[in-house]
Protein backbone atom coordinates (compact mmCIF):
# COMPACT_ATOMS: atom_id res chain seq x y z
CA UNK A 1 0.00 0.00 0.00
CA UNK A 2 2.75 2.42 0.99
CA UNK A 3 4.60 1.57 -2.20
CA UNK A 4 1.50 2.37 -4.24
CA UNK A 5 1.00 5.71 -2.53
CA UNK A 6 4.64 6.66 -2.92
CA UNK A 7 4.52 5.67 -6.57
CA UNK A 8 1.52 7.95 -7.13
CA UNK A 9 3.25 10.72 -5.20
CA UNK A 10 6.30 10.38 -7.44
CA UNK A 11 4.07 10.81 -10.49
CA UNK A 12 2.54 13.92 -8.92
CA UNK A 13 6.01 15.38 -8.19
CA UNK A 14 7.03 14.55 -11.72
CA UNK A 15 4.14 16.65 -13.07
CA UNK A 16 4.77 19.50 -10.69
CA UNK A 17 8.34 19.69 -11.91
CA UNK A 18 7.31 19.61 -15.57
CA UNK A 19 4.82 22.46 -15.57
CA UNK A 20 6.62 25.12 -13.62
CA UNK A 21 7.44 28.26 -15.48
CA UNK A 22 4.90 30.88 -16.39
CA UNK A 23 4.58 32.79 -19.61
CA UNK A 24 4.22 36.19 -18.01
CA UNK A 25 7.50 37.44 -19.41
CA UNK A 26 6.64 36.38 -22.94
CA UNK A 27 3.19 37.95 -22.57
CA UNK A 28 4.74 41.15 -21.32
CA UNK A 29 7.12 41.28 -24.26
CA UNK A 30 4.12 41.10 -26.58
CA UNK A 31 2.14 43.66 -24.65
CA UNK A 32 3.17 46.51 -26.91
CA UNK A 33 0.48 48.57 -28.48
CA UNK A 34 -1.85 46.50 -30.64
CA UNK A 35 -2.46 47.97 -34.08
CA UNK A 36 -6.05 47.66 -35.28
CA UNK A 37 -6.47 47.98 -39.02
CA UNK A 38 -8.21 46.51 -42.04
CA UNK A 39 -6.70 43.85 -44.27
CA UNK A 40 -6.51 46.37 -47.11
CA UNK A 41 -4.72 48.94 -44.96
CA UNK A 42 -2.26 46.28 -43.90
CA UNK A 43 -1.61 45.02 -47.42
CA UNK A 44 -1.05 48.57 -48.67
CA UNK A 45 2.14 48.79 -46.58
CA UNK A 46 2.86 45.51 -44.78
CA UNK A 47 6.54 46.32 -44.14
CA UNK A 48 5.37 49.05 -41.74
CA UNK A 49 3.94 46.45 -39.35
CA UNK A 50 6.65 43.77 -39.26
CA UNK A 51 7.16 42.55 -35.69
CA UNK A 52 4.10 44.43 -34.44
CA UNK A 53 0.98 42.97 -32.88
CA UNK A 54 -2.03 43.58 -35.08
CA UNK A 55 -5.74 42.88 -34.99
CA UNK A 56 -7.78 42.79 -38.18
CA UNK A 57 -10.93 41.35 -39.65
CA UNK A 58 -11.27 39.56 -42.94
CA UNK A 59 -13.19 36.98 -44.91
CA UNK A 60 -11.62 33.52 -44.77
CA UNK A 61 -11.23 32.34 -48.35
CA UNK A 62 -9.03 29.34 -47.73
CA UNK A 63 -7.91 27.04 -44.91
CA UNK A 64 -5.11 24.61 -45.75
CA UNK A 65 -6.68 21.20 -45.69
CA UNK A 66 -3.67 19.28 -44.38
CA UNK A 67 -3.47 20.23 -40.76
CA UNK A 68 -5.14 23.66 -40.93
CA UNK A 69 -1.91 25.41 -39.99
CA UNK A 70 -2.53 28.26 -42.44
CA UNK A 71 -5.50 30.21 -43.62
CA UNK A 72 -5.93 33.13 -45.99
CA UNK A 73 -8.17 36.12 -45.47
CA UNK A 74 -9.23 38.97 -47.74
CA UNK A 75 -10.59 42.45 -47.13
CA UNK A 76 -12.62 44.63 -49.47
CA UNK A 77 -10.26 43.86 -52.32
CA UNK A 78 -10.88 40.16 -52.68
CA UNK A 79 -7.93 39.62 -55.00
CA UNK A 80 -5.31 40.34 -52.32
CA UNK A 81 -5.09 37.66 -49.72
CA UNK A 82 -3.19 37.65 -46.46
CA UNK A 83 -1.64 34.53 -45.01
CA UNK A 84 -2.41 33.78 -41.36
CA UNK A 85 -0.27 31.11 -39.68
CA UNK A 86 -1.29 29.24 -36.54
CA UNK A 87 0.86 30.38 -33.62
CA UNK A 88 1.64 28.55 -30.36
CA UNK A 89 -1.82 29.15 -28.94
CA UNK A 90 -3.71 27.99 -32.03
CA UNK A 91 -3.69 24.29 -32.81
CA UNK A 92 -5.26 24.60 -36.24
CA UNK A 93 -7.76 26.68 -38.15
CA UNK A 94 -11.07 24.88 -38.68
CA UNK A 95 -12.02 24.18 -42.26
CA UNK A 96 -15.56 25.29 -41.38
CA UNK A 97 -14.25 28.88 -41.07
CA UNK A 98 -14.08 29.25 -44.86
CA UNK A 99 -16.58 31.88 -45.92
CA UNK A 100 -16.76 33.44 -42.44
CA UNK A 101 -15.54 36.79 -41.18
CA UNK A 102 -12.88 36.34 -38.53
CA UNK A 103 -11.03 38.72 -36.28
CA UNK A 104 -7.44 37.67 -35.87
CA UNK A 105 -4.77 38.87 -33.50
CA UNK A 106 -1.11 38.14 -34.06
CA UNK A 107 2.40 39.26 -34.85
CA UNK A 108 3.36 40.31 -38.37
CA UNK A 109 6.12 38.22 -39.87
CA UNK A 110 8.23 38.79 -42.96
CA UNK A 111 9.73 36.00 -45.02
CA UNK A 112 12.60 37.18 -47.20
CA UNK A 113 13.37 35.20 -50.32
CA UNK A 114 16.83 35.85 -51.69
CA UNK A 115 19.22 33.89 -53.89
CA UNK A 116 20.57 31.97 -50.87
CA UNK A 117 17.03 30.95 -49.89
CA UNK A 118 16.32 29.71 -53.42
CA UNK A 119 19.59 27.74 -53.50
CA UNK A 120 18.74 26.09 -50.16
CA UNK A 121 15.30 25.26 -51.49
CA UNK A 122 16.86 23.69 -54.60
CA UNK A 123 19.18 21.63 -52.40
CA UNK A 124 16.23 20.41 -50.31
CA UNK A 125 14.43 19.37 -53.49
CA UNK A 126 17.51 17.54 -54.79
CA UNK A 127 17.85 15.77 -51.44
CA UNK A 128 14.14 14.89 -51.61
CA UNK A 129 13.65 16.08 -48.04
CA UNK A 130 10.04 15.38 -47.08
CA UNK A 131 10.34 17.68 -44.03
CA UNK A 132 11.40 20.65 -46.12
CA UNK A 133 9.74 23.90 -45.02
CA UNK A 134 11.15 25.97 -47.87
CA UNK A 135 8.06 25.89 -50.08
CA UNK A 136 6.09 29.14 -50.21
CA UNK A 137 2.39 28.71 -49.50
CA UNK A 138 0.14 31.14 -51.30
CA UNK A 139 -3.15 29.34 -50.64
CA UNK A 140 -4.34 29.12 -54.22
CA UNK A 141 -7.62 27.26 -54.77
CA UNK A 142 -7.06 23.53 -54.95
CA UNK A 143 -3.31 23.79 -54.34
CA UNK A 144 -3.45 20.69 -52.12
CA UNK A 145 -4.03 18.57 -55.21
CA UNK A 146 -0.50 19.49 -56.28
CA UNK A 147 1.11 18.55 -52.95
CA UNK A 148 4.29 16.61 -53.56
CA UNK A 149 4.52 17.89 -57.12
CA UNK A 150 8.28 18.44 -57.36
CA UNK A 151 8.11 19.99 -60.81
CA UNK A 152 5.67 22.61 -59.52
CA UNK A 153 8.22 23.57 -56.85
CA UNK A 154 11.02 23.84 -59.43
CA UNK A 155 8.74 26.11 -61.45
CA UNK A 156 8.03 28.16 -58.33
CA UNK A 157 11.77 28.60 -57.72
CA UNK A 158 12.37 29.67 -61.33
CA UNK A 159 9.46 32.09 -61.05
CA UNK A 160 10.78 33.69 -57.85
CA UNK A 161 14.28 33.93 -59.31
CA UNK A 162 12.82 35.77 -62.28
CA UNK A 163 10.84 38.09 -59.97
CA UNK A 164 13.97 38.72 -57.95
CA UNK A 165 15.91 39.80 -61.04
CA UNK A 166 13.03 41.96 -62.28
CA UNK A 167 12.67 43.68 -58.92
CA UNK A 168 16.32 44.69 -58.83
CA UNK A 169 16.19 44.06 -55.05
CA UNK A 170 18.27 41.67 -53.00
CA UNK A 171 15.18 39.87 -51.75
CA UNK A 172 11.44 39.42 -52.20
CA UNK A 173 9.28 39.85 -49.12
CA UNK A 174 6.24 37.80 -48.16
CA UNK A 175 4.20 38.91 -45.18
CA UNK A 176 2.02 36.88 -42.89
CA UNK A 177 0.55 37.09 -39.41
CA UNK A 178 1.48 34.55 -36.75
CA UNK A 179 -1.90 34.17 -35.11
CA UNK A 180 -2.24 34.31 -31.33
CA UNK A 181 -6.02 34.11 -31.36
CA UNK A 182 -8.92 34.34 -33.74
CA UNK A 183 -12.64 34.49 -33.40
CA UNK A 184 -15.39 33.95 -35.92
CA UNK A 185 -17.38 37.19 -35.93
CA UNK A 186 -20.44 36.23 -37.89
CA UNK A 187 -21.39 34.80 -41.18
CA UNK A 188 -20.21 37.20 -43.82
CA UNK A 189 -22.72 39.87 -44.39
CA UNK A 190 -22.42 40.19 -47.99
CA UNK A 191 -21.28 41.99 -50.59
CA UNK A 192 -24.22 42.48 -52.78
CA UNK A 193 -22.05 42.51 -55.87
CA UNK A 194 -18.75 40.81 -56.39
CA UNK A 195 -16.04 43.40 -56.86
Amino acid sequence: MIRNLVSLALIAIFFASCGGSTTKQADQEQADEIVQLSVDEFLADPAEYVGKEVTMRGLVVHVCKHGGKRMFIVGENQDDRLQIKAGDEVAAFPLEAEGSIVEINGIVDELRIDEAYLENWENELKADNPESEMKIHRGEEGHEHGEGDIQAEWNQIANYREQLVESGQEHLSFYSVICNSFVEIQEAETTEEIE
Partner: protein
Amino acid sequence: MKKIKWRKWNRAIHRDLGYFFFAMALIYGLSGIAINHLKDWNPNYIYIKKSIEIGHPIDPNISKSEVLEILKKIDEEEGYKDHRMTNPETLRIFLNGGSAYINIETGSGNIERVKRRPLFHAVNYLHYNPKKWWVWFSDAFAVGLIILAVSGLFILRGKNGITRRGAIITSIGILIPIIFLLLYY
Protein backbone atom coordinates in the same frame (compact mmCIF):
# COMPACT_ATOMS: atom_id res chain seq x y z
CA MET B 1 20.76 -1.65 6.83
CA LYS B 2 17.63 -2.69 4.98
CA LYS B 3 18.19 -3.38 1.30
CA ILE B 4 16.08 -1.24 -1.03
CA LYS B 5 13.77 -3.46 -3.09
CA TRP B 6 14.38 -1.52 -6.29
CA ARG B 7 12.66 -4.08 -8.53
CA LYS B 8 9.40 -3.70 -6.64
CA TRP B 9 9.68 0.09 -6.92
CA ASN B 10 10.49 -0.23 -10.60
CA ARG B 11 7.39 -2.37 -11.17
CA ALA B 12 5.17 0.01 -9.22
CA ILE B 13 6.38 3.08 -11.14
CA HIS B 14 6.11 1.25 -14.46
CA ARG B 15 2.61 0.04 -13.64
CA ASP B 16 1.22 3.38 -12.44
CA LEU B 17 2.79 5.43 -15.22
CA GLY B 18 1.34 2.87 -17.64
CA TYR B 19 -2.13 3.31 -16.18
CA PHE B 20 -1.84 7.08 -16.06
CA PHE B 21 -0.60 7.53 -19.62
CA PHE B 22 -2.85 4.89 -21.19
CA ALA B 23 -5.08 7.51 -22.82
CA MET B 24 -2.13 9.62 -23.97
CA ALA B 25 -0.50 6.59 -25.60
CA LEU B 26 -3.70 5.96 -27.57
CA ILE B 27 -4.06 9.65 -28.52
CA TYR B 28 -0.50 9.97 -29.81
CA GLY B 29 -0.50 6.49 -31.34
CA LEU B 30 -3.68 7.09 -33.34
CA SER B 31 -2.81 10.63 -34.39
CA GLY B 32 0.74 9.55 -35.21
CA ILE B 33 -0.52 7.00 -37.71
CA ALA B 34 -3.02 9.52 -39.08
CA ILE B 35 -0.44 12.26 -39.56
CA ASN B 36 2.15 9.86 -41.04
CA HIS B 37 -0.20 9.35 -43.97
CA LEU B 38 -1.31 12.89 -44.72
CA LYS B 39 -0.52 12.36 -48.38
CA ASP B 40 -2.93 9.45 -48.58
CA TRP B 41 -5.92 10.85 -46.74
CA ASN B 42 -7.22 13.75 -44.73
CA PRO B 43 -7.46 12.42 -41.17
CA ASN B 44 -9.33 15.50 -39.92
CA TYR B 45 -12.22 15.80 -42.34
CA ILE B 46 -14.54 13.68 -44.43
CA TYR B 47 -15.51 15.21 -47.76
CA ILE B 48 -18.92 14.58 -49.25
CA LYS B 49 -19.37 15.67 -52.86
CA LYS B 50 -22.66 16.11 -54.64
CA SER B 51 -23.15 17.15 -58.27
CA ILE B 52 -25.46 20.08 -58.94
CA GLU B 53 -26.98 21.44 -62.12
CA ILE B 54 -28.32 24.99 -62.31
CA GLY B 55 -29.39 24.62 -65.92
CA HIS B 56 -28.27 28.02 -67.18
CA PRO B 57 -25.14 30.19 -67.37
CA ILE B 58 -24.45 32.62 -64.51
CA ASP B 59 -23.42 36.27 -64.62
CA PRO B 60 -20.00 36.66 -62.94
CA ASN B 61 -21.35 39.78 -61.20
CA ILE B 62 -24.15 37.81 -59.60
CA SER B 63 -25.82 39.40 -56.57
CA LYS B 64 -26.55 37.82 -53.22
CA SER B 65 -30.27 37.59 -53.94
CA GLU B 66 -29.55 35.80 -57.23
CA VAL B 67 -27.22 33.40 -55.45
CA LEU B 68 -29.95 32.72 -52.90
CA GLU B 69 -32.35 31.96 -55.77
CA ILE B 70 -29.86 29.41 -57.11
CA LEU B 71 -29.46 27.89 -53.66
CA LYS B 72 -33.24 27.70 -53.26
CA LYS B 73 -33.42 25.57 -56.40
CA ILE B 74 -31.05 23.07 -54.84
CA ASP B 75 -32.48 23.31 -51.28
CA GLU B 76 -29.40 24.96 -49.82
CA GLU B 77 -30.54 28.56 -49.20
CA GLU B 78 -30.30 28.21 -45.42
CA GLY B 79 -26.58 27.64 -45.46
CA TYR B 80 -25.44 30.74 -47.39
CA LYS B 81 -22.39 32.59 -45.99
CA ASP B 82 -20.83 34.46 -48.93
CA HIS B 83 -19.83 34.07 -52.56
CA ARG B 84 -17.02 35.06 -54.86
CA MET B 85 -15.46 34.23 -58.23
CA THR B 86 -12.42 32.07 -57.58
CA ASN B 87 -11.32 32.23 -61.20
CA PRO B 88 -12.95 33.57 -64.40
CA GLU B 89 -15.03 30.39 -64.81
CA THR B 90 -15.88 29.35 -61.27
CA LEU B 91 -18.32 30.83 -58.79
CA ARG B 92 -17.75 29.68 -55.26
CA ILE B 93 -20.61 29.91 -52.79
CA PHE B 94 -19.55 29.53 -49.18
CA LEU B 95 -22.05 27.48 -47.22
CA ASN B 96 -22.22 26.36 -43.62
CA GLY B 97 -19.94 23.33 -43.55
CA GLY B 98 -18.87 23.46 -47.17
CA SER B 99 -18.88 25.23 -50.52
CA ALA B 100 -20.60 25.04 -53.87
CA TYR B 101 -18.43 25.42 -56.98
CA ILE B 102 -20.33 26.26 -60.15
CA ASN B 103 -18.99 26.71 -63.66
CA ILE B 104 -20.66 29.95 -64.71
CA GLU B 105 -20.65 29.05 -68.41
CA THR B 106 -22.29 25.63 -68.10
CA GLY B 107 -24.19 26.08 -64.84
CA SER B 108 -22.96 22.72 -63.59
CA GLY B 109 -20.86 22.06 -60.56
CA ASN B 110 -20.75 20.38 -57.20
CA ILE B 111 -21.24 20.94 -53.52
CA GLU B 112 -18.37 19.86 -51.31
CA ARG B 113 -19.35 19.31 -47.71
CA VAL B 114 -16.80 18.83 -44.95
CA LYS B 115 -17.48 16.92 -41.79
CA ARG B 116 -15.10 16.43 -38.89
CA ARG B 117 -13.82 12.87 -38.86
CA PRO B 118 -14.94 11.30 -35.57
CA LEU B 119 -12.15 10.58 -33.09
CA PHE B 120 -9.29 11.44 -35.48
CA HIS B 121 -10.16 15.16 -35.62
CA ALA B 122 -10.04 15.30 -31.82
CA VAL B 123 -6.80 13.31 -31.36
CA ASN B 124 -5.06 15.25 -34.14
CA TYR B 125 -6.16 18.49 -32.49
CA LEU B 126 -4.43 17.35 -29.31
CA HIS B 127 -1.37 16.17 -31.24
CA TYR B 128 -0.90 19.69 -32.63
CA ASN B 129 -0.49 21.05 -29.07
CA PRO B 130 -3.43 23.45 -28.86
CA LYS B 131 -2.43 25.30 -25.67
CA LYS B 132 0.73 25.83 -23.66
CA TRP B 133 -0.42 23.76 -20.72
CA TRP B 134 -1.10 20.92 -23.11
CA VAL B 135 2.52 21.24 -24.32
CA TRP B 136 3.65 20.76 -20.71
CA PHE B 137 1.40 17.75 -20.28
CA SER B 138 2.61 16.19 -23.53
CA ASP B 139 6.22 16.90 -22.46
CA ALA B 140 5.42 15.08 -19.23
CA PHE B 141 4.05 12.22 -21.30
CA ALA B 142 7.27 12.14 -23.33
CA VAL B 143 9.37 11.95 -20.16
CA GLY B 144 6.94 9.33 -18.85
CA LEU B 145 7.50 7.26 -21.99
CA ILE B 146 11.25 7.32 -21.38
CA ILE B 147 10.72 6.14 -17.81
CA LEU B 148 8.29 3.46 -19.02
CA ALA B 149 10.81 2.25 -21.60
CA VAL B 150 13.71 2.04 -19.16
CA SER B 151 11.70 0.59 -16.28
CA GLY B 152 10.15 -1.93 -18.67
CA LEU B 153 13.55 -3.44 -19.32
CA PHE B 154 13.83 -4.54 -15.71
CA ILE B 155 10.38 -5.91 -14.98
CA LEU B 156 11.21 -9.56 -15.58
CA ARG B 157 14.10 -11.73 -14.54
CA GLY B 158 15.24 -15.11 -15.81
CA LYS B 159 15.02 -16.45 -19.35
CA ASN B 160 12.60 -13.72 -20.49
CA GLY B 161 14.53 -10.93 -18.74
CA ILE B 162 16.85 -8.28 -20.10
CA THR B 163 19.90 -10.54 -19.84
CA ARG B 164 18.53 -13.21 -22.19
CA ARG B 165 15.42 -13.02 -24.41
CA GLY B 166 14.95 -9.36 -23.58
CA ALA B 167 18.51 -8.60 -24.71
CA ILE B 168 17.90 -10.09 -28.15
CA ILE B 169 14.58 -8.33 -28.77
CA THR B 170 15.84 -5.01 -27.37
CA SER B 171 18.93 -5.23 -29.60
CA ILE B 172 16.77 -5.77 -32.68
CA GLY B 173 14.70 -2.74 -31.71
CA ILE B 174 17.87 -0.64 -31.35
CA LEU B 175 19.39 -1.94 -34.58
CA ILE B 176 16.43 -1.00 -36.80
CA PRO B 177 16.77 2.80 -36.34
CA ILE B 178 20.58 2.50 -36.48
CA ILE B 179 20.43 0.65 -39.81
CA PHE B 180 18.00 3.26 -41.13
CA LEU B 181 20.35 6.05 -40.06
CA LEU B 182 23.34 4.34 -41.67
CA LEU B 183 21.43 3.97 -44.92
CA TYR B 184 19.72 7.34 -45.20
CA TYR B 185 21.13 9.84 -42.73
